[in-house]
């Protein structure tokens, strides 16, 4: 029996529907892996809750000791809680995207994945989509477990605007995560550490635990280049001050701009990194 009977040419490009299907394969794989590593998920959830509580209690103590008082004290608690929760989300997304290459190197599957006929954009967006869903779920659980410990007033919060900001901001995070993921691809032995350093730099300049106005000159400039700066500012404006989409439109536009620029840029950089890794023979198993 001969199966190979039809003359033709396999496609060089895939229609959008096929690319979505290929991307979903990565979402499904990451979901299966996540289920099998549930114990680690419990650890990170516990760590996230403890971290949120610990930072929230610092603000509470400042209020109790009279360093700040009244509404300012309540706002500080909320400011830090939002920073901690948004950072839990951001770091989960960045970790999920950037660690995929490292993980595939450990398992030795990286060559099989990269030789499959999958457009890189479908692979990376699929992986990132899982990161966003995973990050949202984990952060929602951390929030649900942490908030009862604090007397915060969210009656005036504009949840709709906050959700819109998080959704738009997530697209810019995809680009950032993919860029961080290039490092383990290009530097098999040090790439993972470097991607953690990138994450730490984002933490420093994005106003997670303080306003970016606090930052000195160069770091202040760097904060403008970090999408989480705008995401955090707008989420706080929506939840603490109750501002709507109109008030956060400027930041939303910047976040959308980052997404439009960073996603294609990061995919292009990843593809360039992949070509370099193939030229220098760095796609082998590691670990």
């Amino acid at each position: 029996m001969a199966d190979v009977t039809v003359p033709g040419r396999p496609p060089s490009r895939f229609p959008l529907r096929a690319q979505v299907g290929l991307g979903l394969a990565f979402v499904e794989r990451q979901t299966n892996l996540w289920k099998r590593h549930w114990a680690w998920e419990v650890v990170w959830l516990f760590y996230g809750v403890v971290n949120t509580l610990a930072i929230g209690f610092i603000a509470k103590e400042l209020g109790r000791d009279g360093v700040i008082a009244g509404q300012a004290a309540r706002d500080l608690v909320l400011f830090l809680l939002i920073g901690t929760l948004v950072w839990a989300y951001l770091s989960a997304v960045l970790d999920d995207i950037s660690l995929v290459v490292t993980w595939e190197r450990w398992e030795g599957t990286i060559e099989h994945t990269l030789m499959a006929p999958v457009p890189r954009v479908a692979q990376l967006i699929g992986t990132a989509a899982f990161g966003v869903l995973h990050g949202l779920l984990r952060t929602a659980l951390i929030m649900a477990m942490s908030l009862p410990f604090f007397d915060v007033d969210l009656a005036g919060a504009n949840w709709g605007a906050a959700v819109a900001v998080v959704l738009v901001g997530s697209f810019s995070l995809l680009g950032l995560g993919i860029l961080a993921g290039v490092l383990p691809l290009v530097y098999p032995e040090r790439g993972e550490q470097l991607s953690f350093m990138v994450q730490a730099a984002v933490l420093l300049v994005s106003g997670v635990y303080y306003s970016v106005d606090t930052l000195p000159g160069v770091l202040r400039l760097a904060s403008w280049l970090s999408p989480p700066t705008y995401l955090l500012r707008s989420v706080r404006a929506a939840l603490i001050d109750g501002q709507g989409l109109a008030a956060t439109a400027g930041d939303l536009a910047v976040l959308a701009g980052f997404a439009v620029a960073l996603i294609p840029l990061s995919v292009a950089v990843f593809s360039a990194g992949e070509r370099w890794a193939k030229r220098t023979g760095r796609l082998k198993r590691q670990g």
Partner: protein
Amino acid sequence: MSRSPSLLAPSRPVPRQRQPLAVRGLTKTFRRRKRQVRALRGVSFSVERGSVFGLIGANGSGKSTLIRTLCTLVLPDEGDVRVFGFDVVRESMPARQLINRVSVDPSFFGQLSALENLLFFGRVYGLTAGEIRRRAPEILDRLGLDRSHQRALVKELSRGQQQKIAVARAFLTSPVLMLLDEPTTGLDPRSKRDVQAFVREVQRDHDATIFLTTHDMAEAEALCDRIAFLVGGRIVAEGTPEELRRLVGRGRPLDTIDMEDVFMELTGRRVEEDEEEDEEVVDDG
């Protein structure tokens, strides 16, 4: 193992008139700090449709670099590789749809079951979840991996069982060109026989072309229509097993010469001997 024409999905369409694999002047050198390692030096050969082509070489001879280049994982310095006429560098996407590979190291997500792994690796070749769930157990059955092991986590399986899953992963996608990189190295005799029988069956029943690297001479003789010897990144001899025996026969009856003798006479070494990497120091200054 019984014959079943419906075991694999129909292969992807390919132009019938094109050669499955044509390699011309392939050269690859890796730079490692101040050293250069010459992995491939002007390798040329071609593989006919529906045949099994064997590449024999010691560890360090360049086999893995060659096979990685064929499956688009290493970019060559010079030369070109065409899979059914598609250049693996410039037209890698069409080429990748026609090939798959079994590597010496099975490489799976250890925390997933065999079927979950195959679900992912099948879907990235465009198969639907339904197709994979139907075909994967059939292929694994045929390879002798029982259903309980198919559902077990891969990390809990023996190397032989993992290698069977690796063979299933590759054949699940019905490649028209299959690259087998030492697929039976380290397997117990029974697993080795299962894998070899499956390879023969797929090649016979599904018009697949197979490129096999090995240092198992008996396996090469049993499976291959043509054999090439790779030494120091160069092909030093190529032919059918009988042609190669004739090269060194000098009047002896050919059935008294095994492929190990042929390799020894043509290369001056035993295939079990690891090759030193061919290095040279580079002055970057």
